[in-house]
């Protein structure tokens, strides 16, 4: 019988792994399944106890109600613009900053790096007030730019890529420079392609966290046409009173589609990036 490295038969170790992974998979998958299920239920059935797993009379009215109640497509477009904008800018600034910190010797490098690490501990909520005042002063309130600009740099991104870049052999750069490449050329033609897993992983992370923002978009947008997905969901959810769960779930089902689509499309890189950036940490 074939044996795996740990001495267990390959087949049974796979089975074991599958069983173990099945538990978190079900735990994570169930809410999504139930969200879809409730979104097709009639109002009375949504309250039934014990709850039914599948709707007994599936209806589409929740979806049409949700789409009529608010401009969901507009919300989605706004979220996409903001999230893609933030992701692109953060990727660029993180690559440049991480490269400088990892590879260029300059005075105060350690201090700058220390600041970046310290920034990891500052929750973004704290910066809301100064950011808001800045947006008011520059007249950017209620624009897409206001959703993007305050998030032009990410401490997490810089740190993640710094770790990754530090792990790339220096010889690679020396060879490139001997061949006459400039720093920029080396960075974008060699280092970036080599570091793709980490960059994509960070990109997905940046996208999802930008997509999930609530407080900032709420504060900085004014008109319904500028609202993002998360603020939009808030409009469905009642406070201190009965909520129409079917409609909320229908709206949510529509609104999570882009996140899920993005994750499926980049799943491989995402996982690889997280794994390899972990391996890149030097002891």
């Amino acid at each position: 019988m074939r044996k795996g490295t740990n001495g267990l038969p390959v087949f049974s170790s796979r089975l074991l792994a599958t069983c173990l992974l099945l538990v978190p998979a079900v735990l994570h998958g169930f809410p999504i399944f139930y969200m879809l299920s409730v979104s097709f239920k009639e109002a009375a059935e949504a309250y039934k106890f014990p709850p039914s797993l599948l709707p007994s009379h599936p209806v589409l009215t929740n979806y049409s109600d949700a789409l009529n109640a608010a401009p969901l497509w507009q919300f989605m477009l706004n979220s996409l613009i903001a999230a893609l904008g933030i992701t692109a800018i953060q990727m660029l600034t993180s690559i440049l900053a991480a490269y400088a910190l990892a590879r260029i010797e300059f005075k105060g490098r350690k201090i700058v790096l220390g600041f970046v690490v310290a920034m990891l501990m500052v929750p973004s909520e704290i910066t809301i007030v100064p950011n808001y005042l800045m947006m008011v002063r520059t007249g950017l309130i209620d624009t897409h730019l206001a959703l993007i600009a305050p998030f032009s740099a990410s401490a997490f991104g810089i740190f993640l890529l710094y770790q990754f870049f530090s792990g790339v052999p220096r010889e690679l750069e020396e060879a490139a420079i001997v061949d006459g490449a400039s720093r920029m050329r080396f960075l974008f033609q060699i280092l970036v392609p080599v570091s793709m897993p980490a960059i994509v992983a960070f990109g997905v992370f940046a996208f999802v966290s930008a997509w999930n923002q609530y407080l900032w978009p709420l504060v900085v947008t004014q008109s319904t046409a500028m609202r993002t997905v998360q603020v939009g969901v808030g409009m469905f959810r009642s406070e201190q009173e009965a909520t129409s769960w079917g409609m909320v779930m229908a709206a949510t089902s529509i609104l999570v589609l882009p996140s899920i689509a993005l994750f499926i499309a980049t799943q491989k890189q995402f996982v690889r990036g997280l794994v390899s950036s972990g391996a890149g940490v030097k002891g």
Partner: protein
Amino acid sequence: MKMKKKMKKKKKIKRWMPFSLILAGAMTMIPMSACTSGKNSAGRVFGSGKIKKAKAIEFWHSMSGDKSQVLNDLVDDYNKDATATGRLPVKLQFTGTYTDGINKLRLAVMANRPPHLAQIYEIGTQQLVDSGAVIPLEELIAGDSDFGLEQMLPQVLQYYTVRGKLYSLPFATSNPVIYANGNALEAAGMTTPPDTFEGLEEACPKLADLIKGRTCLTLPLTSWLFEQSLARQGALLVDKENGRIGVSGEAIYAGAEGRFFFDFLRRLSDAGMFANTGRSWDPPVENFMAGRSALLVTSTSDVFVLGQRAKFPVVVGRFPVRANLGSVISSGTILGGNSIWAMKGRADGEMKQAYQFVKYLASAPVQRRWHVNTGYFPIRKDVIGALEAEGFYTANPNARVAVDQLLAAPDSAAAKGALAGVFPELREHVENAMEEALAGKDGSGPSLERAQAKSSRALQRYRKLL
């Protein structure tokens, strides 16, 4: 001149300082940094902040779900007339939950960009009064004899009247009622839910069906209901007559009256009769709607929705009183909900237009539509009178309960409800105590006293800042 302006601005920002101490949770640190940064740079950066002429009256609100639709319709109707008569239209802006809404308003005031009108929850009243950033409604009404103030219910106005001045327009007003599952009542041989806490406790074993997994009572563990139970006993939450004759500095709710509600819940809970679903407002409603609890105590604003969606008959009763209270019986419940505030900082001409909209919201036809579509009660006598004459309440006895309850509220400090600048924090302390008392071993007394001490400290801190 410039200096003066600067000083004024500084003062304004300083007056919002108490705000910074108020919020619990994630927002705690924001107002702090806001105030320091605002203080240093206010004159320089924002002193010249001129607001562009508005093309519409900005109205910030926190109505979501079904109720936002009703509000949208009301505003659409107003806007239809507005263009014809050359008035400014109204632009609605949803600002998230009540807490999000007041936070956003605070930011806007600091940045010198307030909306014309803002809808704020009732417990924000004292903060806004002290902020100096609002125009009291009474000043806007001054000289306009057909606003209809004499038609407004005094029981509603008294909540938002601070030191003799009406500050805001009570808009979505509610009080707590008890919803009963008609089938469970019938099985227990009753037609209406019990109207005393003692009666409720006695009836509970009959109303619950523990074999089927049905508890007797479910309610959100919110301080609002605790405050109501105090009012029902004629007791106060804070000193200075519930903060109505001065700024309170002492919480006084841990007495026998306070313990009464805690102990009531604890006894039911120990007997397995109370479904404790935590502080959120939704789960108890779902519990009740699923037939898992015979009784639900929550806001009257759900009265129509629950009646329509339930698969069983729903019978509504008054929030219970305590039996044998003798001469101190208070049948009052405290107003809940929100009111509409006019903000300073916009052009006078625009505020005149904003006032027209406020007047529209207060008018009889609008109040009537708002009431029959949401379950919040109307603030006008003539609306109640007309609905009564048309037999609306005979057809909808459930909607009548909250109105009766409101009209029965006496003119007492207990029934008026408390005013406190740190109200959100007080609620946090009371709710912590509720959870402790239900789960812990040391009973209601110690947990209430701890909460009271913390609340008093918060009140004193606020008073010092004024």
